């Protein structure tokens, strides 16, 4: 199967899981599906065998709303059991929410590194994982998330210590829960120049293009690397934004009608 078909399958898992559990956060997940796909399948070199090792590369999804997308990507890549998707955000044996519970490795989801239920925690956490280590750490942050000050504290730290084994990926989709990022506090327009100013090499690319993303990850840079991935929030279900409004589009499950529409859309792709 080629990448395009595999991503289509990821999205199928994603929508099926969301619809089954009646949960939202689909648009946030769709925005970074390709980034996570590239990281887990081509870059990070995380396998089922080394999942519980202390010494391996790390992938942190700091924008916690993309958890749904993350488990879909992991299930498609065979890193977690497909049956776990049925238990996503449900009662009883549920293990996956915005954050993950208990000792994750005991639950066969050792591949998921950090439970970030709250925004602005992943990047500093990543600095700790990357410090004095030869393994790489990849942290996906949202552009809205960059309004949290802790991110910038870490960016200053990484820049000044020239920490080269941590890569920041900014999922730049210009939307947060209530409105466009530019309408609230603008961490969208100049984010590339802002991060560059702290001593980073910034690479900008299309966040939905697997080839471009892979290329960006493989480029060797002299300074710490930051990839600005331009994306669309809710790529395959954007039509729902007008109907649902910002808040509900971000957090509420899709209606059955919209779900059917999305399913057709994915197959046409």
């Amino acid at each position, binding site marked *: 199967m080629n990448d395009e078909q595999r991503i289509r399958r990821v999205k199928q898992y994603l929508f099926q899981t969301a619809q089954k559990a009646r*949960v939202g956060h689909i648009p946030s997940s769709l925005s970074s599906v390709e980034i996570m796909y590239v990281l887990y399948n081509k870059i990070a070199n995380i396998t089922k065998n080394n999942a519980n090792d202390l010494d391996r590369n790390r992938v942190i999804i700091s924008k*916690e709303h993309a958890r749904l997308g993350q488990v879909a990507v992991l299930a498609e890549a065979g890193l977690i059991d497909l049956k776990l998707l049925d238990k996503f*955000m*449900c*009662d*009883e044996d*549920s293990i996956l*929410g*915005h*954050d993950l*519970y*208990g000792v994750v490795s005991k639950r066969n989801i050792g591949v998921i590194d950090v*439970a*970030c*239920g*709250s*925004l*602005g925690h992943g990047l500093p956490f990543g600095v700790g994982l990357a410090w004095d280590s030869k393994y790489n750490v990849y942290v996906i942050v949202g552009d*809205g*998330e960059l*309004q*949290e*000050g802790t991110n910038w504290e870490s960016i200053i730290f990484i820049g000044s210590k020239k920490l080269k084994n941590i890569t920041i990926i900014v999922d730049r989709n210009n939307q*947060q*829960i*209530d*409105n466009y*990022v530019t309408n*609230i*506090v603008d*961490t969208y327009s100049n984010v590339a120049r802002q991060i560059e100013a702290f001593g980073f090499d910034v690479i900008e690319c299309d966040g939905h293009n697997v080839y471009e993303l892979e290329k960006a990850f493989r480029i060797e840079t002299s300074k710490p690397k930051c990839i600005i991935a331009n994306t669309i929030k809710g790529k395959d279900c954007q039509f729902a934004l007008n109907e649902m*409004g*910002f*808040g509900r589009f*971000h*957090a509420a499950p899709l209606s059955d009608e919209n779900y059917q529409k999305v399913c057709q859309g994915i197959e046409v792709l």
Partner: protein
Amino acid sequence: MTVENLKNVVLNEAYKNEDVYIVYVDGALTAFFDDFAKQFPNKFINVGIAEAEAISIASGLALRGKTVYVVGLAQYVTARAYEQVRMDCAYNNANVKIIGFISGLSSCKAGYSHWAIEDINLMSNLPNMTVCCPGSDVEFREVFKYSLKHKGPMYISWNTAKCAMKKYSVDVNKISTIYSGFDFALLTYGVDVSFGIDFCENMIKAGLSPMLLSVHTLKPLDETRINEILDMNIPVITLEEHLYNGSLASKISEIIATRGLRVPFLPIYISDSKFNILGSVKFLRDKLFNVKNIENSIVDFVYQNKNKNKKFRLFYSLHKFDKKGRLIENFYFCGLRLLKKRKKINKDKYKYYLFGFLPIN
């Protein structure tokens, strides 16, 4: 309390009062402040996803003599921005009113990162801070009116999920009595007020005389009223979606211990040992509390501590289960006759069993 009510109550005052400012942390409520923000762009500040900054900005405004409301998710405006609340609001005695919405377990599926189950403890620890947790429409209105007059920091924990619409008189500095019975006293606040009302109505149907008290103001606590209740020597129960430390239960335990009383006391709170699950609110309430089933344990407790001079009769609990055997709802009533009168009940779906004996008044 619905979101619409917050809009009406808060914004009406903000329109009228020149000195009222709103600092808002991004969280799905912007639409309700839209008109206000357009009319007074300087009085409404949306700081984005930055709780710590929001509290400090608000404190700055407050030190210029303004009344500032910070609106944000309960967990984040308290725990996340704790140092800012401590230094900028509390120790400065700044006139900042923090409204934390979606408190308790209401953001159930989002996980423990979103639950506000330590907020009362954190905020009560701080000097100068007034802590309120209204559980009904009337309470929120009264607390809000009070917050406009009161000078100094205040935390209002507010819940969109469940709000009791029952009318009763509310005085912010005093505990509100919703039912004044004499068989047992249930003290509660926040979301559990509406639970308490439902539960007490069932108890009244079952022939009991419950006392229901809403402790909407947790700091300063109305100790006079609590002492009155403890002196009645009836079983006392507290119920709250909060960890034990710093909770209402711990405060009442302190009073009982310092006074050396022998009052039967059942604290119901979230036990802090099992944060490895998530799910719907109903599921979490069954699993996370220190008792297995809230209703049953209260009835059990009241029965164990019953007044021996009274007569008792049989008491039944009727449970309805879904296909997987999970409890959907339960009723209480006395005597088997009532059960037979309910013709529609399908025996396969319900289970009933003798629960105990309860007093006849």
